[in-house]
Protein backbone atom coordinates (compact mmCIF):
# COMPACT_ATOMS: atom_id res chain seq x y z
CA UNK A 1 0.00 0.00 0.00
CA UNK A 2 1.50 3.43 -0.93
CA UNK A 3 2.36 5.60 2.06
CA UNK A 4 0.55 8.66 0.68
CA UNK A 5 -2.42 7.58 -1.39
CA UNK A 6 -3.50 10.09 -4.06
CA UNK A 7 -7.11 11.35 -3.81
CA UNK A 8 -8.33 9.06 -6.58
CA UNK A 9 -7.31 5.88 -4.82
CA UNK A 10 -8.58 7.24 -1.53
CA UNK A 11 -12.18 6.58 -2.49
CA UNK A 12 -11.06 3.23 -3.81
CA UNK A 13 -9.47 2.56 -0.46
CA UNK A 14 -12.65 3.61 1.29
CA UNK A 15 -14.59 1.03 -0.73
CA UNK A 16 -12.11 -1.69 0.15
CA UNK A 17 -12.35 -0.79 3.83
CA UNK A 18 -16.11 -1.17 3.64
CA UNK A 19 -15.72 -4.52 1.95
CA UNK A 20 -13.21 -5.60 4.60
CA UNK A 21 -15.69 -4.50 7.27
CA UNK A 22 -18.46 -6.40 5.59
CA UNK A 23 -16.28 -9.51 5.48
CA UNK A 24 -15.28 -9.37 9.14
CA UNK A 25 -18.83 -8.45 10.12
CA UNK A 26 -20.16 -11.56 8.43
CA UNK A 27 -17.37 -13.72 9.85
CA UNK A 28 -18.09 -12.44 13.35
CA UNK A 29 -21.85 -13.02 13.28
CA UNK A 30 -21.75 -16.40 11.52
CA UNK A 31 -21.18 -18.57 14.64
CA UNK A 32 -23.94 -16.70 16.47
CA UNK A 33 -26.25 -16.99 13.48
CA UNK A 34 -25.62 -20.75 13.43
CA UNK A 35 -26.62 -21.02 17.10
CA UNK A 36 -29.67 -18.90 16.36
CA UNK A 37 -30.58 -21.40 13.67
CA UNK A 38 -29.79 -24.50 15.74
CA UNK A 39 -31.42 -23.48 19.02
CA UNK A 40 -33.96 -20.87 17.94
CA UNK A 41 -35.27 -21.50 14.46
CA UNK A 42 -34.75 -25.24 13.94
CA UNK A 43 -36.39 -26.39 17.20
CA UNK A 44 -39.35 -24.17 16.36
CA UNK A 45 -39.64 -25.58 12.84
CA UNK A 46 -39.22 -29.13 14.10
CA UNK A 47 -41.91 -28.55 16.75
CA UNK A 48 -44.20 -27.21 13.99
CA UNK A 49 -43.48 -30.31 11.91
CA UNK A 50 -44.16 -32.64 14.86
CA UNK A 51 -47.31 -30.78 15.89
CA UNK A 52 -48.92 -31.18 12.47
CA UNK A 53 -47.89 -34.77 11.78
CA UNK A 54 -48.34 -38.22 13.25
CA UNK A 55 -45.79 -40.92 12.39
CA UNK A 56 -44.55 -38.63 9.62
CA UNK A 57 -47.97 -38.18 7.96
CA UNK A 58 -49.65 -34.77 7.86
CA UNK A 59 -52.68 -34.75 10.16
CA UNK A 60 -53.70 -31.07 10.18
CA UNK A 61 -54.86 -29.88 13.57
CA UNK A 62 -55.54 -33.37 14.95
CA UNK A 63 -52.74 -33.17 17.56
CA UNK A 64 -53.97 -29.78 18.73
CA UNK A 65 -57.56 -31.00 18.98
CA UNK A 66 -56.41 -34.05 20.93
CA UNK A 67 -54.55 -32.02 23.55
CA UNK A 68 -57.30 -29.39 23.76
CA UNK A 69 -59.80 -32.16 24.47
CA UNK A 70 -57.54 -33.78 27.06
CA UNK A 71 -59.37 -33.53 30.41
CA UNK A 72 -56.18 -32.09 31.95
CA UNK A 73 -55.77 -29.26 29.40
CA UNK A 74 -58.44 -26.75 30.47
CA UNK A 75 -57.66 -27.05 34.19
CA UNK A 76 -53.98 -26.40 33.36
CA UNK A 77 -54.95 -23.29 31.34
CA UNK A 78 -57.09 -22.17 34.27
CA UNK A 79 -54.28 -22.73 36.81
CA UNK A 80 -51.76 -20.80 34.73
CA UNK A 81 -54.33 -18.06 34.02
CA UNK A 82 -55.24 -17.49 37.65
CA UNK A 83 -51.58 -17.53 38.65
CA UNK A 84 -50.80 -14.94 35.95
CA UNK A 85 -53.56 -12.60 37.08
CA UNK A 86 -52.57 -12.80 40.74
CA UNK A 87 -48.89 -12.49 40.03
CA UNK A 88 -49.01 -9.68 37.46
CA UNK A 89 -51.37 -7.53 39.52
CA UNK A 90 -49.21 -7.98 42.61
CA UNK A 91 -46.01 -7.45 40.65
CA UNK A 92 -47.11 -4.21 38.97
CA UNK A 93 -48.69 -2.69 42.08
CA UNK A 94 -45.95 -3.60 44.52
CA UNK A 95 -42.97 -2.98 42.25
CA UNK A 96 -44.22 0.47 41.23
CA UNK A 97 -45.16 1.48 44.77
CA UNK A 98 -41.95 0.12 46.31
CA UNK A 99 -39.75 1.72 43.64
CA UNK A 100 -41.40 5.11 44.18
CA UNK A 101 -41.10 4.73 47.95
CA UNK A 102 -37.44 3.73 47.78
CA UNK A 103 -36.83 6.65 45.45
CA UNK A 104 -38.55 9.06 47.82
CA UNK A 105 -36.33 8.45 50.84
CA UNK A 106 -33.72 11.14 51.05
CA UNK A 107 -31.14 9.07 52.90
CA UNK A 108 -28.92 7.58 50.23
CA UNK A 109 -27.50 4.78 52.37
CA UNK A 110 -30.98 3.61 53.32
CA UNK A 111 -32.30 3.60 49.77
CA UNK A 112 -29.14 1.83 48.57
CA UNK A 113 -29.41 -0.80 51.30
CA UNK A 114 -33.08 -1.39 50.53
CA UNK A 115 -32.44 -1.95 46.83
CA UNK A 116 -29.58 -4.29 47.68
CA UNK A 117 -31.66 -6.36 50.11
CA UNK A 118 -34.58 -6.56 47.67
CA UNK A 119 -32.27 -7.69 44.91
CA UNK A 120 -30.41 -10.52 46.73
CA UNK A 121 -33.05 -13.26 46.27
CA UNK A 122 -32.59 -12.77 42.52
CA UNK A 123 -29.53 -15.00 42.91
CA UNK A 124 -31.88 -17.89 43.58
CA UNK A 125 -33.98 -19.35 40.85
CA UNK A 126 -34.93 -22.75 39.60
CA UNK A 127 -35.18 -25.55 42.09
CA UNK A 128 -33.24 -23.86 44.90
CA UNK A 129 -35.71 -21.04 45.48
CA UNK A 130 -38.64 -23.47 45.57
CA UNK A 131 -36.68 -25.70 47.93
CA UNK A 132 -36.15 -22.78 50.30
CA UNK A 133 -39.84 -21.90 50.13
CA UNK A 134 -40.79 -25.49 51.00
CA UNK A 135 -39.19 -24.79 54.37
CA UNK A 136 -40.70 -21.34 54.71
CA UNK A 137 -44.19 -22.64 53.93
CA UNK A 138 -43.98 -25.66 56.22
CA UNK A 139 -45.42 -24.53 59.57
CA UNK A 140 -43.45 -27.17 61.50
CA UNK A 141 -40.05 -25.66 60.61
CA UNK A 142 -40.87 -22.26 59.10
CA UNK A 143 -39.13 -19.11 60.32
CA UNK A 144 -42.54 -17.45 60.08
CA UNK A 145 -44.48 -20.33 61.63
CA UNK A 146 -46.37 -17.86 63.85
CA UNK A 147 -47.82 -16.19 60.73
CA UNK A 148 -48.82 -19.48 59.13
CA UNK A 149 -50.37 -20.71 62.38
CA UNK A 150 -52.21 -17.41 62.80
CA UNK A 151 -53.72 -18.05 59.38
CA UNK A 152 -54.80 -21.50 60.51
CA UNK A 153 -52.29 -23.71 58.72
CA UNK A 154 -50.74 -26.67 60.49
CA UNK A 155 -48.88 -28.42 57.67
CA UNK A 156 -47.30 -27.81 54.28
CA UNK A 157 -50.13 -29.73 52.67
CA UNK A 158 -52.70 -27.34 54.08
CA UNK A 159 -50.73 -24.34 52.81
CA UNK A 160 -50.55 -25.55 49.23
CA UNK A 161 -54.22 -26.53 48.77
CA UNK A 162 -55.46 -25.95 45.23
CA UNK A 163 -57.35 -22.71 45.84
CA UNK A 164 -54.35 -21.11 47.56
CA UNK A 165 -51.70 -22.41 45.18
CA UNK A 166 -51.76 -19.46 42.70
CA UNK A 167 -51.01 -17.15 45.64
CA UNK A 168 -48.22 -19.40 46.88
CA UNK A 169 -46.66 -19.56 43.42
CA UNK A 170 -47.03 -15.78 43.03
CA UNK A 171 -45.28 -15.18 46.36
CA UNK A 172 -42.35 -17.41 45.34
CA UNK A 173 -42.08 -15.72 41.94
CA UNK A 174 -42.33 -12.27 43.54
CA UNK A 175 -39.66 -13.12 46.08
CA UNK A 176 -37.14 -14.13 43.40
CA UNK A 177 -37.99 -11.62 40.67
CA UNK A 178 -39.36 -8.41 42.14
CA UNK A 179 -36.07 -7.00 43.44
CA UNK A 180 -34.51 -6.85 40.01
CA UNK A 181 -37.53 -4.99 38.67
CA UNK A 182 -37.52 -2.55 41.59
CA UNK A 183 -33.92 -1.73 40.70
CA UNK A 184 -34.88 -1.23 37.04
CA UNK A 185 -37.82 1.04 37.96
CA UNK A 186 -35.61 2.99 40.34
CA UNK A 187 -33.28 3.61 37.41
CA UNK A 188 -36.23 4.83 35.33
CA UNK A 189 -37.30 7.16 38.15
CA UNK A 190 -33.79 8.57 38.36
CA UNK A 191 -34.03 9.56 34.70
CA UNK A 192 -36.89 11.97 35.45
CA UNK A 193 -35.36 15.47 35.61
CA UNK A 194 -35.30 16.93 39.10
CA UNK A 195 -36.81 20.22 37.81
CA UNK A 196 -39.96 18.42 36.68
CA UNK A 197 -40.57 17.01 40.16
CA UNK A 198 -39.67 20.33 41.77
CA UNK A 199 -42.12 22.18 39.51
CA UNK A 200 -44.87 19.75 40.48
CA UNK A 201 -44.15 20.30 44.15
CA UNK A 202 -44.23 24.07 43.70
CA UNK A 203 -47.61 23.71 41.97
CA UNK A 204 -48.85 22.04 45.13
CA UNK A 205 -48.79 18.38 44.07
CA UNK A 206 -48.29 15.96 46.96
CA UNK A 207 -46.27 12.76 46.65
CA UNK A 208 -49.27 10.67 45.55
CA UNK A 209 -50.38 13.17 42.93
CA UNK A 210 -46.78 13.45 41.65
CA UNK A 211 -46.47 9.67 41.45
CA UNK A 212 -49.76 9.28 39.61
CA UNK A 213 -49.45 12.17 37.15
CA UNK A 214 -45.71 12.36 36.51
CA UNK A 215 -43.67 9.41 37.71
CA UNK A 216 -45.91 6.52 36.65
CA UNK A 217 -46.59 7.91 33.14
CA UNK A 218 -42.84 8.31 32.66
CA UNK A 219 -42.23 4.71 33.82
CA UNK A 220 -44.84 3.36 31.41
CA UNK A 221 -42.46 1.75 28.91
CA UNK A 222 -40.57 -0.03 31.65
CA UNK A 223 -43.77 -1.23 33.28
CA UNK A 224 -44.88 -2.59 29.90
CA UNK A 225 -41.49 -4.29 29.52
CA UNK A 226 -41.88 -5.93 32.92
CA UNK A 227 -45.44 -7.07 32.19
CA UNK A 228 -44.54 -8.54 28.79
CA UNK A 229 -41.53 -10.46 30.09
CA UNK A 230 -43.33 -11.61 33.23
CA UNK A 231 -46.45 -12.69 31.36
CA UNK A 232 -44.43 -14.68 28.85
CA UNK A 233 -42.33 -16.19 31.63
CA UNK A 234 -45.39 -16.95 33.75
CA UNK A 235 -47.13 -18.97 31.05
CA UNK A 236 -44.09 -21.27 31.17
CA UNK A 237 -44.64 -22.25 34.82
CA UNK A 238 -42.86 -25.55 35.41
CA UNK A 239 -40.27 -25.97 38.15
CA UNK A 240 -42.33 -24.47 41.01
CA UNK A 241 -45.39 -26.76 40.70
CA UNK A 242 -43.13 -29.69 39.85
CA UNK A 243 -41.09 -29.46 43.04
CA UNK A 244 -44.22 -28.67 45.08
CA UNK A 245 -45.90 -31.75 43.60
CA UNK A 246 -42.96 -33.83 44.73
CA UNK A 247 -43.11 -32.52 48.30
CA UNK A 248 -46.84 -32.18 48.90
CA UNK A 249 -47.89 -35.84 48.83
CA UNK A 250 -49.80 -35.36 45.61
CA UNK A 251 -51.82 -32.32 46.71
CA UNK A 252 -50.21 -30.37 43.88
CA UNK A 253 -50.76 -32.45 40.77
CA UNK A 254 -48.11 -33.49 38.25
CA UNK A 255 -50.17 -31.85 35.49
CA UNK A 256 -50.81 -28.53 37.19
CA UNK A 257 -49.33 -26.28 34.49
CA UNK A 258 -49.28 -26.43 30.68
CA UNK A 259 -45.55 -27.07 30.51
CA UNK A 260 -45.92 -29.94 32.96
CA UNK A 261 -48.62 -31.39 30.73
CA UNK A 262 -46.38 -31.02 27.66
CA UNK A 263 -43.64 -32.72 29.67
CA UNK A 264 -45.94 -35.61 30.59
CA UNK A 265 -46.93 -36.05 26.93
CA UNK A 266 -43.27 -36.39 25.93
CA UNK A 267 -41.99 -38.40 28.89
CA UNK A 268 -44.88 -40.49 30.22
CA UNK A 269 -46.95 -41.05 27.09
CA UNK A 270 -44.06 -40.88 24.59
CA UNK A 271 -46.34 -38.70 22.46
CA UNK A 272 -43.90 -36.17 20.99
CA UNK A 273 -46.57 -34.85 18.61
CA UNK A 274 -48.92 -33.90 21.43
CA UNK A 275 -46.03 -32.45 23.43
CA UNK A 276 -44.96 -30.35 20.43
CA UNK A 277 -48.54 -29.09 19.98
CA UNK A 278 -48.72 -27.75 23.57
CA UNK A 279 -45.20 -26.30 23.39
CA UNK A 280 -46.07 -24.59 20.15
CA UNK A 281 -49.15 -22.91 21.62
CA UNK A 282 -47.02 -21.56 24.49
CA UNK A 283 -44.23 -20.53 22.15
CA UNK A 284 -46.70 -18.72 19.87
CA UNK A 285 -48.00 -16.67 22.82
CA UNK A 286 -44.45 -15.69 23.80
CA UNK A 287 -43.44 -14.89 20.22
CA UNK A 288 -46.46 -12.71 19.47
CA UNK A 289 -45.97 -10.76 22.70
CA UNK A 290 -42.29 -10.35 22.00
CA UNK A 291 -42.75 -9.19 18.39
CA UNK A 292 -45.45 -6.69 19.31
CA UNK A 293 -43.34 -5.33 22.11
CA UNK A 294 -40.11 -5.04 20.11
CA UNK A 295 -41.82 -3.10 17.31
CA UNK A 296 -44.48 -1.17 19.27
CA UNK A 297 -43.15 -1.00 22.83
CA UNK A 298 -40.95 2.03 22.21
CA UNK A 299 -38.10 0.66 24.30
CA UNK A 300 -35.99 -0.46 21.35
CA UNK A 301 -36.99 2.24 18.85
CA UNK A 302 -33.43 3.04 17.83
CA UNK A 303 -32.41 -0.55 17.30
Amino acid at each position, binding site marked *: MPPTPPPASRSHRRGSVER*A*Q*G*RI*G*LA*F*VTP*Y*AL*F*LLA*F*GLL*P*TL*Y*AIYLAFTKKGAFVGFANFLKVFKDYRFLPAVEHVGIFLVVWLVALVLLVVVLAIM*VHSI*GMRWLSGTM*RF*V*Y*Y*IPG*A*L*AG*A*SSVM*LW*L*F*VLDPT*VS*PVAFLLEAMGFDSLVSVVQADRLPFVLAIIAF*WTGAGGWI*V*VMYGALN*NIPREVLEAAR*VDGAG*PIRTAWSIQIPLMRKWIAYMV*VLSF*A*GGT*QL*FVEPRVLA*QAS*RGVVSQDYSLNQL*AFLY*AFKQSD*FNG*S*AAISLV*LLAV*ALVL*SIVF*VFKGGLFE*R*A
Partner: protein
Amino acid sequence: MSAHENSGPARALTPAEWLGRAVTILVLITFALFFVVPLIWLLIAPTKTDRQLLLEMPFAFGDFSTLAANWTSLVTFQGGLIWQWIGNSAFYCGAALVITLLISIPAGYAMALTEFPGRRALLATTLVVMLVPGTALVLPIFLELSAVRLIGNPLAAILPFSFFPFGVYLTYIYFSTAVSRDLLDAARIDGATEFEVFLKIAMPLATPVIALVGFFNFTGNWNNYFLPYVTLPGKKAPIQVGLAELLSNVPAFNPTNAASTTISLSALALATLIAIAPVMIVFLFCQRFLVSGMTAGGTKE
Protein backbone atom coordinates in the same frame (compact mmCIF):
# COMPACT_ATOMS: atom_id res chain seq x y z
CA MET B 1 -39.53 30.21 40.64
CA SER B 2 -39.07 32.76 43.39
CA ALA B 3 -36.46 32.22 46.03
CA HIS B 4 -39.03 32.37 48.82
CA GLU B 5 -40.88 29.31 47.64
CA ASN B 6 -37.73 27.25 47.53
CA SER B 7 -37.95 25.66 50.95
CA GLY B 8 -34.87 23.54 51.43
CA PRO B 9 -34.61 20.07 52.95
CA ALA B 10 -34.10 21.62 56.40
CA ARG B 11 -37.77 22.74 56.44
CA ALA B 12 -39.73 21.18 59.31
CA LEU B 13 -42.09 18.40 58.22
CA THR B 14 -45.81 18.90 58.59
CA PRO B 15 -47.59 16.16 60.59
CA ALA B 16 -48.98 14.68 57.34
CA GLU B 17 -45.53 14.56 55.77
CA TRP B 18 -44.07 13.03 58.90
CA LEU B 19 -46.74 10.34 58.88
CA GLY B 20 -46.17 9.69 55.18
CA ARG B 21 -42.48 9.26 55.74
CA ALA B 22 -43.01 6.92 58.70
CA VAL B 23 -45.42 4.75 56.70
CA THR B 24 -42.95 4.65 53.78
CA ILE B 25 -40.09 3.46 55.95
CA LEU B 26 -42.31 0.93 57.74
CA VAL B 27 -43.47 -0.56 54.42
CA LEU B 28 -39.94 -0.69 53.05
CA ILE B 29 -38.61 -2.44 56.15
CA THR B 30 -41.47 -4.95 56.10
CA PHE B 31 -40.59 -5.91 52.54
CA ALA B 32 -36.89 -5.99 53.36
CA LEU B 33 -37.73 -8.60 56.02
CA PHE B 34 -39.82 -10.55 53.52
CA PHE B 35 -36.89 -10.72 51.12
CA VAL B 36 -34.14 -11.45 53.60
CA VAL B 37 -35.67 -13.59 56.39
CA PRO B 38 -35.81 -16.83 54.33
CA LEU B 39 -32.13 -16.43 53.45
CA ILE B 40 -31.06 -15.81 57.04
CA TRP B 41 -33.00 -18.86 58.11
CA LEU B 42 -31.27 -20.90 55.40
CA LEU B 43 -27.87 -19.88 56.79
CA ILE B 44 -28.83 -21.06 60.28
CA ALA B 45 -30.80 -24.24 59.52
CA PRO B 46 -27.81 -26.48 58.64
CA THR B 47 -26.39 -25.95 62.15
CA LYS B 48 -29.33 -27.79 63.72
CA THR B 49 -30.71 -31.29 63.89
CA ASP B 50 -34.16 -31.98 62.50
CA ARG B 51 -35.47 -32.15 66.05
CA GLN B 52 -34.05 -28.71 66.81
CA LEU B 53 -35.56 -27.37 63.58
CA LEU B 54 -38.98 -28.53 64.70
CA LEU B 55 -38.80 -27.47 68.32
CA GLU B 56 -36.40 -24.59 68.81
CA MET B 57 -36.65 -20.92 67.92
CA PRO B 58 -36.23 -20.55 64.15
CA PHE B 59 -33.35 -18.09 64.42
CA ALA B 60 -31.44 -19.74 67.25
CA PHE B 61 -28.01 -20.93 66.13
CA GLY B 62 -27.41 -24.67 66.59
CA ASP B 63 -23.78 -25.69 66.85
CA PHE B 64 -20.85 -26.44 64.61
CA SER B 65 -20.66 -30.15 65.40
CA THR B 66 -24.22 -30.55 64.09
CA LEU B 67 -23.22 -28.61 60.99
CA ALA B 68 -20.30 -31.02 60.55
CA ALA B 69 -22.60 -34.02 60.99
CA ASN B 70 -25.05 -32.66 58.41
CA TRP B 71 -22.16 -32.01 56.07
CA THR B 72 -20.93 -35.59 56.44
CA SER B 73 -24.34 -37.11 55.85
CA LEU B 74 -24.81 -34.95 52.76
CA VAL B 75 -21.43 -35.58 51.13
CA THR B 76 -21.58 -39.31 51.80
CA PHE B 77 -25.08 -39.60 50.32
CA GLN B 78 -24.80 -42.21 47.55
CA GLY B 79 -21.00 -42.02 47.52
CA GLY B 80 -20.64 -38.25 47.17
CA LEU B 81 -23.28 -37.79 44.51
CA ILE B 82 -23.60 -34.11 45.40
CA TRP B 83 -20.00 -33.47 44.30
CA GLN B 84 -20.77 -35.14 41.01
CA TRP B 85 -23.79 -32.83 40.54
CA ILE B 86 -21.74 -29.75 41.42
CA GLY B 87 -18.97 -30.89 39.10
CA ASN B 88 -21.50 -31.40 36.30
CA SER B 89 -22.88 -27.90 36.85
CA ALA B 90 -19.41 -26.39 36.84
CA PHE B 91 -18.48 -28.25 33.66
CA TYR B 92 -21.66 -27.40 31.72
CA CYS B 93 -21.79 -23.76 32.84
CA GLY B 94 -18.04 -23.23 32.47
CA ALA B 95 -17.89 -24.65 28.96
CA ALA B 96 -21.01 -22.71 27.97
CA LEU B 97 -19.50 -19.54 29.42
CA VAL B 98 -16.41 -19.83 27.22
CA ILE B 99 -18.41 -20.59 24.07
CA THR B 100 -20.92 -17.83 24.83
CA LEU B 101 -18.21 -15.20 25.16
CA LEU B 102 -16.37 -16.38 22.04
CA ILE B 103 -19.61 -16.14 20.08
CA SER B 104 -21.49 -13.18 21.56
CA ILE B 105 -18.75 -10.57 21.88
CA PRO B 106 -17.65 -10.65 18.20
CA ALA B 107 -21.30 -10.87 17.09
CA GLY B 108 -22.34 -7.83 19.16
CA TYR B 109 -19.29 -5.94 17.92
CA ALA B 110 -20.07 -6.75 14.29
CA MET B 111 -23.70 -5.70 14.66
CA ALA B 112 -22.74 -2.41 16.30
CA LEU B 113 -19.70 -1.28 14.34
CA THR B 114 -19.63 -2.96 10.94
CA GLU B 115 -21.97 -3.06 7.99
CA PHE B 116 -22.93 -6.34 6.38
CA PRO B 117 -25.96 -7.59 4.49
CA GLY B 118 -28.75 -8.73 6.80
CA ARG B 119 -27.54 -6.75 9.81
CA ARG B 120 -30.92 -5.16 10.62
CA ALA B 121 -32.79 -8.43 10.20
CA LEU B 122 -30.36 -10.22 12.53
CA LEU B 123 -30.71 -7.45 15.11
CA ALA B 124 -34.52 -7.57 15.02
CA THR B 125 -34.48 -11.38 15.31
CA THR B 126 -32.10 -11.14 18.27
CA LEU B 127 -34.44 -8.74 20.06
CA VAL B 128 -37.47 -10.95 19.49
CA VAL B 129 -35.73 -14.17 20.58
CA MET B 130 -34.22 -12.40 23.59
CA LEU B 131 -37.68 -11.58 24.94
CA VAL B 132 -39.01 -15.12 24.48
CA PRO B 133 -38.49 -16.92 27.78
CA GLY B 134 -35.86 -19.64 27.56
CA THR B 135 -38.28 -22.23 28.93
CA ALA B 136 -40.54 -21.78 25.89
CA LEU B 137 -37.90 -23.49 23.75
CA VAL B 138 -36.96 -26.26 26.19
CA LEU B 139 -39.31 -28.96 24.90
CA PRO B 140 -38.74 -28.06 21.21
CA ILE B 141 -34.97 -28.22 21.86
CA PHE B 142 -35.43 -31.54 23.64
CA LEU B 143 -37.39 -32.90 20.67
CA GLU B 144 -34.69 -31.68 18.29
CA LEU B 145 -31.83 -33.08 20.37
CA SER B 146 -33.52 -36.45 20.72
CA ALA B 147 -33.97 -36.53 16.93
CA VAL B 148 -30.19 -36.18 16.56
CA ARG B 149 -29.54 -38.57 19.51
CA LEU B 150 -27.74 -36.08 21.74
CA ILE B 151 -29.86 -36.64 24.86
CA GLY B 152 -27.60 -37.64 27.76
CA ASN B 153 -24.55 -36.13 26.08
CA PRO B 154 -23.01 -33.13 27.91
CA LEU B 155 -23.44 -31.19 24.66
CA ALA B 156 -27.20 -31.37 25.27
CA ALA B 157 -26.70 -28.80 28.02
CA ILE B 158 -23.58 -26.98 26.86
CA LEU B 159 -24.81 -26.05 23.37
CA PRO B 160 -28.26 -24.68 24.34
CA PHE B 161 -26.60 -22.90 27.31
CA SER B 162 -24.26 -21.17 24.84
CA PHE B 163 -27.07 -19.65 22.80
CA PHE B 164 -27.47 -16.31 24.55
CA PRO B 165 -29.14 -13.57 22.46
CA PHE B 166 -29.37 -11.26 25.47
CA GLY B 167 -25.57 -11.29 25.65
CA VAL B 168 -25.30 -10.38 21.98
CA TYR B 169 -27.74 -7.51 22.54
CA LEU B 170 -25.87 -6.22 25.61
CA THR B 171 -22.62 -6.29 23.64
CA TYR B 172 -24.30 -4.53 20.73
CA ILE B 173 -25.61 -1.77 23.00
CA TYR B 174 -22.25 -1.41 24.67
CA PHE B 175 -20.22 -1.12 21.49
CA SER B 176 -22.66 1.23 19.79
CA THR B 177 -22.66 3.62 22.76
CA ALA B 178 -19.29 3.33 24.49
CA VAL B 179 -16.93 2.95 21.53
CA SER B 180 -16.81 5.60 18.81
CA ARG B 181 -16.41 4.75 15.14
CA ASP B 182 -13.87 7.58 14.82
CA LEU B 183 -11.51 5.76 17.17
CA LEU B 184 -11.69 2.63 15.02
CA ASP B 185 -11.28 4.69 11.84
CA ALA B 186 -8.14 6.28 13.26
CA ALA B 187 -6.65 2.83 13.77
CA ARG B 188 -7.63 1.87 10.21
CA ILE B 189 -5.87 4.94 8.81
CA ASP B 190 -2.78 3.84 10.75
CA GLY B 191 -2.93 0.65 8.73
CA ALA B 192 -4.52 -1.77 11.20
CA THR B 193 -6.44 -4.66 9.63
CA GLU B 194 -10.09 -5.14 10.58
CA PHE B 195 -9.18 -8.00 12.89
CA GLU B 196 -6.50 -5.91 14.60
CA VAL B 197 -9.01 -3.10 15.07
CA PHE B 198 -11.28 -5.52 16.92
CA LEU B 199 -8.55 -7.19 18.95
CA LYS B 200 -6.40 -4.19 19.86
CA ILE B 201 -8.88 -1.29 20.00
CA ALA B 202 -12.33 -2.67 20.74
CA MET B 203 -11.53 -5.62 23.02
CA PRO B 204 -9.52 -3.71 25.65
CA LEU B 205 -12.48 -1.33 25.98
CA ALA B 206 -14.96 -4.19 26.30
CA THR B 207 -14.00 -5.62 29.72
CA PRO B 208 -17.15 -4.38 31.52
CA VAL B 209 -19.52 -5.88 28.99
CA ILE B 210 -17.59 -9.16 28.84
CA ALA B 211 -17.96 -9.47 32.62
CA LEU B 212 -21.64 -8.60 32.45
CA VAL B 213 -22.47 -11.08 29.69
CA GLY B 214 -20.42 -13.71 31.47
CA PHE B 215 -22.22 -13.14 34.75
CA PHE B 216 -25.75 -13.28 33.33
CA ASN B 217 -24.92 -16.32 31.24
CA PHE B 218 -23.28 -18.25 34.07
CA THR B 219 -25.89 -17.54 36.75
CA GLY B 220 -28.80 -18.16 34.38
CA ASN B 221 -27.35 -21.50 33.37
CA TRP B 222 -26.39 -22.49 36.92
CA ASN B 223 -29.98 -21.90 38.02
CA ASN B 224 -31.53 -23.53 34.96
CA TYR B 225 -33.61 -26.52 35.96
CA PHE B 226 -36.00 -27.36 33.13
CA LEU B 227 -33.56 -27.84 30.23
CA PRO B 228 -31.01 -30.14 31.92
CA TYR B 229 -33.87 -31.96 33.67
CA VAL B 230 -35.17 -33.15 30.29
CA THR B 231 -31.90 -33.42 28.33
CA LEU B 232 -29.51 -34.85 30.96
CA PRO B 233 -31.10 -37.51 33.12
CA GLY B 234 -29.51 -39.54 35.93
CA LYS B 235 -25.90 -39.11 37.04
CA LYS B 236 -25.27 -36.47 34.38
CA ALA B 237 -27.68 -34.04 36.07
CA PRO B 238 -26.47 -30.66 37.34
CA ILE B 239 -26.99 -29.53 40.93
CA GLN B 240 -30.42 -27.89 40.43
CA VAL B 241 -31.85 -31.15 39.15
CA GLY B 242 -29.92 -32.99 41.85
CA LEU B 243 -31.54 -30.87 44.57
CA ALA B 244 -35.00 -31.93 43.45
CA GLU B 245 -33.68 -35.49 43.39
CA LEU B 246 -32.50 -35.13 47.01
CA LEU B 247 -35.96 -33.93 47.96
CA SER B 248 -37.44 -37.32 47.08
CA ASN B 249 -35.11 -38.86 49.68
CA VAL B 250 -36.34 -36.65 52.51
CA PRO B 251 -38.80 -38.64 54.63
CA ALA B 252 -40.34 -35.48 56.09
CA PHE B 253 -41.66 -34.54 52.64
CA ASN B 254 -42.22 -38.08 51.35
CA PRO B 255 -43.43 -40.29 54.21
CA THR B 256 -44.11 -43.25 51.94
CA ASN B 257 -40.60 -43.23 50.52
CA ALA B 258 -38.83 -46.54 51.04
CA ALA B 259 -35.34 -45.45 50.02
CA SER B 260 -32.61 -47.06 52.11
CA THR B 261 -30.52 -43.92 52.54
CA THR B 262 -32.40 -40.83 53.57
CA ILE B 263 -31.62 -37.15 53.82
CA SER B 264 -32.56 -35.08 56.84
CA LEU B 265 -34.29 -31.72 56.55
CA SER B 266 -31.23 -29.85 57.77
CA ALA B 267 -29.00 -31.69 55.29
CA LEU B 268 -31.43 -30.65 52.53
CA ALA B 269 -31.16 -27.05 53.72
CA LEU B 270 -27.37 -27.39 53.59
CA ALA B 271 -27.58 -28.79 50.05
CA THR B 272 -29.72 -25.81 49.01
CA LEU B 273 -27.16 -23.48 50.53
CA ILE B 274 -24.31 -25.21 48.67
CA ALA B 275 -26.27 -25.09 45.43
CA ILE B 276 -26.80 -21.34 45.61
CA ALA B 277 -23.40 -20.46 47.07
CA PRO B 278 -21.45 -19.84 43.83
CA VAL B 279 -24.09 -17.53 42.40
CA MET B 280 -24.71 -15.84 45.74
CA ILE B 281 -21.04 -15.01 46.21
CA VAL B 282 -20.76 -13.42 42.77
CA PHE B 283 -24.01 -11.55 43.42
CA LEU B 284 -22.86 -10.04 46.68
CA PHE B 285 -19.54 -8.89 45.24
CA CYS B 286 -20.79 -7.46 41.96
CA GLN B 287 -24.07 -5.86 43.01
CA ARG B 288 -23.31 -2.29 41.98
CA PHE B 289 -21.87 -3.45 38.71
CA LEU B 290 -24.85 -5.69 37.94
CA VAL B 291 -27.39 -2.99 38.63
CA SER B 292 -25.82 -0.78 35.98
CA GLY B 293 -25.99 -3.69 33.56
CA MET B 294 -29.64 -4.47 34.21
CA THR B 295 -30.75 -0.97 33.39
CA ALA B 296 -28.56 -0.98 30.28
CA GLY B 297 -30.92 -3.58 28.83
CA GLY B 298 -33.14 -1.08 27.10
CA THR B 299 -31.77 2.42 27.31
CA LYS B 300 -29.45 4.02 24.84
CA GLU B 301 -28.26 7.29 26.29
